[in-house]
Structure formats: C-alpha cells, structure tokens
C-alpha cells in the first residue's frame, strides 16, 4: 500500500516537476525576451544613453565655491529671454542661514540676482551658505513622465527640453517637478525651464550661468567620459543629489550639500 502510494506520489511529483520546469522555462524565456525588447529603455533609464557618440550631460555645483553674487541667474535671464519679474527663474540662488537656535532662515530675493544681504546678526549665525538651483536634468524626470502630449522630452544627451510649439499649457509638469524648476512663461504661455543652454552646448559653449560664474562653482560635463573634469570631480568628492528619495535620476550633483537643503 505504502509502496504504491509512494510510486504514485513519485509519478505525481515527476509530472508536477515537469510542469514546473516547463512553466519556469516559459517564464524565463518570456522575461529574457521582454528584457531584450526593453533593453534599450533600461539602458537609457540607467543614466547611459543609447547613442554612444553623444555625451550624457551631468552637472556639478560646488556649494563651497558659491559666493552668492547672483551673476549666474542674471546671465541666464539675459541669455534665455526669461522675463525679468521676480517670479520666473531658470536658475536662482538660495541663501541658507542656520542659526544657533537650530532654526534655518532661507531667502532668495529676486532669485539672488541683486546679491544678498545677511539679515541675521553675526552672533546668532551657526553657519551660512549659498545654494544655486537649476533644473536637475533628471534621467527619470517626473516632468517628462507626466506631460500629456510629450512636449517635454529628454534629449539624447540627457537634457530635459520643452517643445514650445507643442506644449498645451496644462502645467502638470510644473506640479510634478519636486525642485520648483519650472514656470509658465507669461508671454509665450507655455512651460519653461533650464535647457542647460542647449543652443550653446551645440556650439561647444558652456551654459551661460557657468560661463559667467567667477568662482567656477558650476560645472557641466559628459558623465560617460571617465576622463572628464566632471567625472573626476565626482570621483574625488562626496556629492549628493537633491531629494534622492524621489528617485528622479537627478544628474545635478551637489558638493558639500547640507541636510537643510531641499
């Protein structure tokens, strides 16, 4: 009795094993097939572009070097036709003042274009620093994800751009950007943001904000080129992106980023 049961059991196990192997093979095949089909996308999202002949741009901002002169923000407005009113910025500078009592004072009057005045008395200051902000040119950008018509897109070089002739002005992208880098252009009536001066990049010129920075606090470069200044900097410094928990694939790396900054 017990023999026959076990024989039957074996038979059962064998057949179920066959079934299992069959389905496992199918599943594995399907997975491999799927990942092969999806591989290009996976590569792209892993911060490496498809087209190896093109650069994959990243940015470094060295907080220790920023002196808060605001020339970058001014140059950006001039270069990119951004309205001068203090509500529209492709880049701006924030001044953080951590007081002795632990509270943090953050200001950015006119985006820092006119420079800063420290209003906290010296004796109350624990530390103070400037943080330039601009588009993070995320490789998994939420703004690109939510655009209903695909007017926002990631260029092959990893620059997040907007097709102004295509944007319907729904403002969903402005809501989706966790860094506050987007705004509605009051004249063009479409979304607007930093293009990393794409028009200049194409001519091998540095973005306006970086061109004018007197201390070299801002850097851009090809993340794929392991010999580039940018990659070298990233290797030698401990850098951090903003809001890493949001997994936006930000490619703007800050050196000496303080935990107060968001």
């Amino acid at each position, binding site marked *: 009795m017990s023999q026959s049961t076990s024989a039957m059991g074996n038979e059962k196990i064998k057949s179920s094993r066959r079934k299992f192997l069959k389905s496992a093979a199918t599943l594995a095949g399907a997975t491999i097939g799927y990942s092969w089909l999806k591989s290009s996308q996976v590569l792209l999202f892993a911060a490496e572009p498809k087209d190896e002949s093109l650069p994959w741009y990243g940015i470094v901002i060295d907080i220790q070097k920023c002196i808060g002169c605001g020339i970058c923000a001014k140059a950006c407005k001039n270069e990119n036709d951004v309205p001068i009113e203090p509500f529209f910025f492709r880049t701006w500078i924030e001044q953080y003042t951590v007081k002795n009592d632990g509270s*943090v004072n953050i200001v*950015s009057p006119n985006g820092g274009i006119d420079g800063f005045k420290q209003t906290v008395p010296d004796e109350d200051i624990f530390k103070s620093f400037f943080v330039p902000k601009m588009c993070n040119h995320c490789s998994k950008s939420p703004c690109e994800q939510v655009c209903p018509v695909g007017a926002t897109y990631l260029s092959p070089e990893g620059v997040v751009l907007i097709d102004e002739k295509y944007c319907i002005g729904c403002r969903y992208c402005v809501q989706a950007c966790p860094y*506050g880098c987007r705004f509605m252009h009051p004249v063009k009536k479409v979304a607007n943001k930093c293009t990393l001066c794409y028009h200049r990049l194409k001519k091998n010129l540095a973005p306006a904000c970086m061109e004018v920075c007197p201390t070299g606090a801002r850097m851009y470069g090809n993340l794929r080129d392991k010999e580039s200044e940018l990659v070298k900097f990233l290797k030698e410094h401990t850098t951090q992106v903003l809001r890493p928990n949001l997994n936006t694939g930000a490619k703007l790396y800050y050196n000496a980023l303080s935990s107060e900054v968001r």
Partner: protein
Amino acid sequence: MEPHYQHLYEILANAQGYIFPNEIDLQWGILIVVYPFITGLVAGAFILASLERVFKVKILKPTYQIALLTALSFLLVATMPLISHLSQPQRAYEIMITPNSSSAMAIFGFVYLWYLMVVLLLEIWFDYRHSMVVWSNEKKGVIKWVYKVLTLGVSDISPRTVKWDRKLGYIITVIGIPSAFILHGYVGFIFGSIKANPWWSTPLMPIIFLFSAMVSGISLVMLVYMVISHIRKKVIDVNVLDAIGKYLFFVLILDFTLEGLDQIQRIYEAEESFEIIKLLVSGKLYLTLFVAQGLVGTIIPLITLAFLQFYKHKIKLRKTMYFIVSILVLIGVYSMRWNVVIGGQLFSKSFSGFTSFKVGLIGLDGTLMAAFWLILPIGILAFLLWLLPPWKMVEEEE
C-alpha cells in the same frame, strides 16, 4: 505694470517663510477645483443609477433616469473647465492625437470618451429608444423629427426588440459601473501619482476621490429629485429619500473612514513634509478643511443621516433634513476638492513656506467662470428633462 504682475507682487509680499521663486503663482486655480467636482458628480450619479438597474433596487426607480440625465449633463461640461484653463487651448486635441503613454493626464480624453460614448449615451439611448419612437409618432412639427433623429432610425418597437434594448442596456450598466470607478478613480490618480507633492501623493487618493464622488453624486440626485418633484408639484416620496439616504449614510461613513485613515497615516508616519502640512491644515486650510469639509460636509450630515435611520415620524421634517443634508454634503465635497487642489499648491515644495491664493472674480480663471461651468450643467439637465421626461416614458412590463 501688467495687472498679472501686480497681483503676483502682492502675493510675493505676503509669502510666508521660504518658497521657491517659481512657486509664487498657483498653477491650478478654481477651474481645476471645479473639474474633479463635476466628474465626481457624474460618477456618483451614475453609480446610484446602476444600483437601481443592476441590483434591482426597485424603490430607486423614480430616480433612475434623473440620475442618468444628471450624469450626462455634468459629463458634457466636464472637459470645459479643463480646456479653458489650458494656456494653449487650441492645442488641446494633441492630447488625443499624440498622447504620452506615461502621462496620467493623457488618458483622460480616452476615459472620458469611453464613458460618454460607450457608457452613458448608449445606456440612455437603449433606455429611451422605445419611448422616443412612440413620441416621434405622437408629436408634431420639429420635435417629431428631433425624436426621429434621436432614435437613429431604429423604430422597431416589437416586444422582442424592446426586450433586447433592456438586455443591452443592462450589459452596458454592468460595464458602466467599473467605467465610472475608472473615470473618477483616475481623476484621483492624477493627483495621487505626483510624488513631488506629499499632500497629493498617496495611493489612497483614487479611492478617496471615488468615494467622495459617490457621496456627492448621490446627494446631487437626491437634491435634483426633490427639486424636480417640487417643480412638477408632485409629492416627494419619502421612501425614495430614505433609500437614497441610507446609501448616502453608508458611503459617507466609508468616505470619512478613508479620509481619516489617510490623515492618521500622515500624522503617525510624520515624514519630512509633516511639519509643513501640519501648518497648512491648521492655518490656511483650517476653514475649508475642518469647518467646511469636516464639520459642515461630513460630521453634521453623518449625525443627521444616522438620526434619520431610525427617526421615521414627521415626513415633512425628514424631507427638510434630507434637503439640507444633500446641500451640506455637496458643500463638503466641493471643499474637499478645494483642499486637495488649492491646498496642495499653497505650501512650497521646499517645505519651508507658503504662498497664498486669491480667486479673481472675472477672467477665464475666475469665480464667475467657475460658477458658469457649475450652472451650465443644470441648464442642460433642465433641457434634457424637457426633451426626455422620465415621467412620460412608455411603461414596460417587467
């Protein structure tokens, strides 16, 4: 200086704490408050209609067509606040032609069309076809031809065909229930999927939107039923009100529980955004959240409805109470939309400060425009009730 900038300078002067410089101006104004409110009414009204149809709740029969026509009236207008808030409304069609598959918003056009064309219009058509054929034979002049066109030339009213009308209508209702869930759950997802905004980003958002939609839709149908009966000088059947009131009571409990759960979760987890959200709800949203949405729109209706579950005396008093409850619930759900849409934009994504919002009276994004989009469906409903009076429909034996 342009008036727009003048307005922004005023807001800038009143900003509290630190906000990113691009955040002074709210991107979504009152029209985007109206939009989920309207779609919610559509979904809720339809679900109430489906209750009667699919679950054979006979007592709700007098409200069946009213609910369907209410849903249609509001659905016809649902896209208007959306399109009129676009900065480039002339490009709105792009959303249908070249939708970005990763965008939650891009699917709206398709969900909307599916719901309008496949669900609502078809269901109403199957429901009214028999009557429209009869009316087209009875009436004279232009209206005769209007009904003729509306029947789409299908004038067969043999019992077999009419039976098929009923059958197909039933199937569409069955498809319609998940469709209504998708329509409004999806609207919640538009907000709930924005990870940049902690006030919006919660997987509960679609479900909360859905239940608040049902609450508002049920209230609206109850209100419309009472108003129509009053205008037609017919007696309001208090049993119908009791039945609707019972559903409203249960759905409101669920809605309240879900929203409470969402808030408790936020408070207990107390993530990095907690401090700013605490300031938001206790400050700028205090009136609209705790008073309008919580007390007026939820607690008072809940207590009243609970009371009405066992208070079965004075009919006139009960009717008055139902009337007031339905209005309070609508105010509450409108406030909920406000709290989500406007509330979510008042605090900075730096979590360090607040901007402010003042609704203008005029302009495309002003109160008058929003009021217009809310009143227009009522006008459409009046027209539809005149064209397709539920009380003059051909009686069909079951």
